[in-house]
């Protein structure tokens, strides 16, 4: 399906199926069309082209209230004139659920989102995170067949987010809801979802299980967008999977496609697979010579920034438990990795980490 606002293409031929009971995450840079896609699924937007099918039936023209789908809106859209309790009770009451059942369910959901004590307040008297939790409760209380969540946990602190993630998972297990999830928290996407769709500029770039997306990205964009990745410009030198990187020849397992000798490509290695070695890599490891440029403490890991001989940055995440040699910027070291930690990706012109809207998209 495609959606245009005037001549602006917000979603461009997105085409995917979501299985029943699946936990489906959508990732993508800001403004790439995630919210618009969700809104089409929920029924607030009619696709300019294409159709939306729910359980086989074309629902492109079915109004939202007849789709058994609920949404947690990015902007919450809480009813300002109702108390928290009434906000949450809105859905069940619309469906004429008996009032003691409503009471029970709302109580339960407020308990889950830890807002039982705030039931009588108006949304405007809540903090941002509290409002988000009300939005979550308001959608969950309906036990819908599918739940569309637009960054539902973005305003919550890590602990609460984790607790909510667990609750969501539990509800999914118990009720069998299909979750479609927009998030900017990659860890969240990777931990929670069965499959992930990575979107870019209105197009779906890759769909797959988290591990697949992480370990076997199909494009430079996906590799760069999910997790961090060292992307080294490479030239294919041999058909068997040998490339030249920064003047050095390295063996590499080819990713899909059949790179021909001389092709320009990109070699990807995840920072956590990069080891910082004082000596040239040995026992099966390969690597390039680098200069240390920076060291940043990041809680569980230390981030070591290096520069390859051709100037490309290489980052290594070194666990606190790994005994790291004492390094200072300027030191010469080796960045090494096991050959299967690297992947060869087709080169792309656009820099993947800068999701700049192309000028021709806006008129």
């Amino acid at each position: 399906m495609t959606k245009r606002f005037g001549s602006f293409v917000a979603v461009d031929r997105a085409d995917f199926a979501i299985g029943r009971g699946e936990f489906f995450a959508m990732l993508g840079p800001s403004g790439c069309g995630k919210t618009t896609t969700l809104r089409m699924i929920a029924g607030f937007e009619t696709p300019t082209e294409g159709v939306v099918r729910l359980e086989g039936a074309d629902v492109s023209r079915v109004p939202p209230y007849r789709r058994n789908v609920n949404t947690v809106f990015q902007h919450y859209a809480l009813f300002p004139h109702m108390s928290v309790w009434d906000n949450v009770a809105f859905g069940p009451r619309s469906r004429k659920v008996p009032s003691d059942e409503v009471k029970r369910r709302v109580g339960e959901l407020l308990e889950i989102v830890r807002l039982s004590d705030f039931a009588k307040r108006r949304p405007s008297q809540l903090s941002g995170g509290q409002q988000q939790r009300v939005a979550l409760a308001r959608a969950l209380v309906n036990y819908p067949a599918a739940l569309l969540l637009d960054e539902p946990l973005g305003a919550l602190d890590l602990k609460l987010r984790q607790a909510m993630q667990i609750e969501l998972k539990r509800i999914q297990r118990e009720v069998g809801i299909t979750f479609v999830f927009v998030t900017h928290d990659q860890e969240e996407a990777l931990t929670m979802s069965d499959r992930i769709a990575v979107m870019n500029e209105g197009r779906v770039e890759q769909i797959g299980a988290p591990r697949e997306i992480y370990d076997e990205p199909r494009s430079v964009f996906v590799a760069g967008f999910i997790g961090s990745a060292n992307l080294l410009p490479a030239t294919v030198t041999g058909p068997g999977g040998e490339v030249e990187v920064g003047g050095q020849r390295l063996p590499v397992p080819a990713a899909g496609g059949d790179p021909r000798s001389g092709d320009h490509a990109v070699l990807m290695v995840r920072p956590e697979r990069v080891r910082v070695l004082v000596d040239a890599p040995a026992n099966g490891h390969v690597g390039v010579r680098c200069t240390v440029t920076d060291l940043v403490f990041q809680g569980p890991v230390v981030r070591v920034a290096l520069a390859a001989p051709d100037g490309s940055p290489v980052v290594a995440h070194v666990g606190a438990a790994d005994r790291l040699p004492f390094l200072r910027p300027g030191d010469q070291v080796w960045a090494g990795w096991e050959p299967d930690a690297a992947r060869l990706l087709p080169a792309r012109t656009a820099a993947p980490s800068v999701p700049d809207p192309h000028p021709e998209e806006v008129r």
Partner: protein
Amino acid sequence: MEREPAPGVKRGRFAPYGLLAPGVLWLALFFLVPLATLLRMSLSSKANRFDFEPDFTWEWSNYSDAITEFGEQFRRSFAYAGIATVLCILIGYPLAYVIAFRGGRYRNLLLGLVVVPFFTSYLIRTFAWRTLLADEGPVVSLLQDVGVLADGGRLLATSWAVIGGLTYNFLPFMVLPIYVALEKIDVRLVDAARDLYSNGWRAFRKVVLPLSLPGVFAGSLLTFIPASGDFVNAQFLGGPNHTMIGNVVQNQFLVQLDYPTAAALGFILMTIITVAVLVYARILGTEELV
């Protein structure tokens, strides 16, 4: 509508204090002085018809007499004005709604169409209605054809003509405030309601309507107040059995020169309307209102 300040906002700490001055001035000049003058007048007694500086004698009988004598006109005024206000809501709300939510880029134009007829003067409008409702006019024929009206039936000089005239004349006073209120409603809230299994009607009733109540309230005041004091419609569209309190006041002032009675009538009007408005506010939900 209650709009609680956003987390911890003290509303209007930012109000320039100078702004209070007009308010105070207004209170004194426009509120207290005329009201006091009027109150005093309403409790005075005239020595004779041409006693234009009546003595202030706590003449409560002005009130009781006015009520017993003009009770019928009072009842009629409030009935007519009330029905006209309800009709204005019934006609004006959908109009404002359609313009605000479905008007798209024609919103200005549509709003114009609603308001433009009212740019002709009040009297002319009332006269136009007279032509419209005339015994040989289009409306009567239509109603007779569909059988709503008996063959010899008429509309002019009936209560319905007066109510119709009031409704017609005060419609923009209803449409505009409702439009202003509707126009501010965040459509995403309607999306949310529809997402939560509310069909259009329920979404309207539970979200749009409550959020637009201040507009309905303002519009009702702007319609009911002048309608209940109106005398033009009753005079030109109604018969002698459909006079309203405005006609009585007009007569007392212009013809009888009985200012104490007129002032008493004004006060009674004010009291009844105030009570009516309070009741109305409570029905709409006071707490929701402001």
